[in-house]
């Protein structure tokens, strides 16, 4: 958007064409070389793309270290890592959806619904394995509904997932009868207590989901199709890919991530509640966008999104360490979002023009 007109066509071929004319042209250009070209990013691209965020993160660490003696400690870094883990897992799914040209507003509500469904008396009576299975199935199932509504029902992703957001939270509230459901299954609560080699289990789960997500996004056909779908759905369709099925899979993936996040949250809060996951959709979208993924799809990195999550968690951490009010924290968060995106666009546009 900030690029001068002479760069527009260049940028266009990598992003989503807005009007029908450009769409047809891009489709013709892309069916052949377009998809293949996406694989040949220069090796420096990931670093350049995330430069802004790395700078912001480094600055935050300097600020944290100089303002609080409790910042630069192993315990605190473990704390930041664990605090990032639940929203981090949700952000992995969100990154796929946004790169694929969609948006998922229902993630917070799906976390709530999965947490409630998995912690009902009936679910808890079957033990930890069933609770985990239940949470993941509920998340995935709701994600499939999102995907089907969008792919086959031709609903705009914004509307379909907005509807899911409202109704899933409503269902969660109804199921829990507006109560907080206490988790009494110790194996679930243990997930938040266990450590392996000094690394909390929650952080390990987070790491595993990120690694799996990175491999799927960057090393598989599924990942390449996701970039292609977000770049131009028409071109992708003409390339012989069933874009409807792929869309459903993307939202199912996001839903599954919500299910996993719900299990982690069950452990962390020792409860299931319809108030869980509030505003996760905004936190996840903000992390993805400051991570350098285009809101229009087709381009983005998972590493950037995760760095985005760390930026937000670190800000909150520093503010609480320094005993500052929430209001000040929110103002600063907003400023940092804008600053990070500005640095990011500059780094990226320089990369595009070279």
């Amino acid at each position, binding site marked *: 958007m900030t690029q001068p007109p002479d760069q527009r066509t260049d940028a266009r071929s990598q992003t989503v064409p807005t009007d029908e004319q450009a769409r047809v042209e891009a489709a013709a250009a892309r069916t052949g070389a377009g998809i293949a070209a996406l694989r040949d990013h220069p090796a420096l691209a990931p670093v350049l793309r995330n430069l802004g965020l790395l700078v912001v993160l480094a600055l935050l660490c300097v600020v944290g270290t100089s303002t609080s003696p409790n910042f630069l400690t192993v315990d605190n870094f473990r704390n930041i890592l664990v*605090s990032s883990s639940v929203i981090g897992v949700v952000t992995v799914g969100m990154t796929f959806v946004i790169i694929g040209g969609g948006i998922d507003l229902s993630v917070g509500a799906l976390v709530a619904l999965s947490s409630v469904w998995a912690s009902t008396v009936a679910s808890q009576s079957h033990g930890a394995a069933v609770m985990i299975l239940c949470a993941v199935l509920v998340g995935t199932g709701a994600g499939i509904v999102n995907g089907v509504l969008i792919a086959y029902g031709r609903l705009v992703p914004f509307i379909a997932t907005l509807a899911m957001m409202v109704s899933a939270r409503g269902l969660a509230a109804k199921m829990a009868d507006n109560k907080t459901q206490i988790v009494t299954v110790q194996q679930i609560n243990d997930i938040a207590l266990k450590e392996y080699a000094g690394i909390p289990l929650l952080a390990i789960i987070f790491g595993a989901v990120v690694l799996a997500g990175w491999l799927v996004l960057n090393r598989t056909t599924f990942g390449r199709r996701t970039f292609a779908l977000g770049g131009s759905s028409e071109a992708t369709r003409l390339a012989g890919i069933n874009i409807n099925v792929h869309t459903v899979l993307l939202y199912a993936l996001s839903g599954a991530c919500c299910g996993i996040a719900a299990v982690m949250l069950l452990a962390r809060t020792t409860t299931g509640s319809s108030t869980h996951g509030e505003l996760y959709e905004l936190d996840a979208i903000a992390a993805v966008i400051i991570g350098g993924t285009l809101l229009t799809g087709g381009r983005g990195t998972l590493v950037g999104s995760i760095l985005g999550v760390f930026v937000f968690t670190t800000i909150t*951490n520093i503010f609480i360490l320094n005993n500052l009010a929430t209001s000040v924290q929110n103002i600063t968060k907003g400023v940092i979002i804008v600053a990070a995106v500005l640095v990011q666009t500059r780094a990226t546009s320089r990369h595009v023009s070279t």
Partner: protein
Amino acid sequence: MAALMDNLGRRRLLTGAGAAGATAFLAACTSNAESSAPAAGGQTTAVATDNAPGKPITIGFSAPEADHGWIGAITSNAKSQAGKYSEVTLDAVEGTNDVNQQISQVETLIDKKVDAIVLLPFDGKALTETGLKAQLAGIPVVNLDRVFADPRAARTWIGGDNYGMGAAAGTYIADQMKSKGISEPVIAEIQGIANLPLTQERSQGFADALGEAGFKVTNQVSAEFTVESGQQVTADLLQAAPHIDALWNHDDDQGVGVMAAINQAGRDEFIMVGGAGSSNMMKLIKSDNSVIKATVTYPPSMASSAINLARLIANGRGMSDLVEPDVPASITLSSATVTKANVDQYLPLAFPS
């Protein structure tokens, strides 16, 4: 080709069977049947003469949506209290957080010419005109907890004492610190939603009571009354303060998350005081094997009392233990400090979070 088709067919079948199985499995996991704890509160507080049957009356009731434990208890207490009087009919409208809708619901009650209205407004200021309208129509209004802007809008007000709640927590903590001989204690405070007047009143009471003992709040964070936010801010708070002597958490609903974070960090060097008085926290206080040693109440049993007041007013009676023939214009409940010593007395009034 045939083999491929066959293979595809089998895959479809398996997927179908898997989906059907998953659906059946999930359906089996929806039940919460065993957890239906009996509604808390609803004690009959009035003495025998107040309880004598009166004329048949209808009491209208309106409150915000029961989206958390405390408001849930308010609504169920009002219903169960009204059920105790055979001559009282309760006309309870559906709870809502939409001020517009609550106004029209109360107007419906006015049109129905109920004998009295018990009203917990979502926003006291926004419902003032409606309360006034009911009063002018000759229907006495019992204003529950959130105060109207104009005292004429209600016949009587009954509610909790947020300042007193903070003061009670501060007094308890100051006493504990003194008896332990800690001269400069690290005292942390976990607020609810920071910008609400009730939160500021609570914090003021807490600071004032601590101030009298020469102490102050060293770390203050705010959560959002939800379990998750309670867990999040507490995890960071425990990092900020490697050693804490006392902790006050404003709200027991978010307290479940606060306790989870404390247990996960393996911290037990401090005492914790809760707020509002949920049954979870009272049970923990009773078992006395965690950091939580007390909670200061903000009792939802006020809804039961409000029904009693509405009934007395509609029957033209006063409170028989007072000399005055009329019900007083305002009743502020005291915030009790519940500890292991007196928890059995308060447990029946506690609400499930």
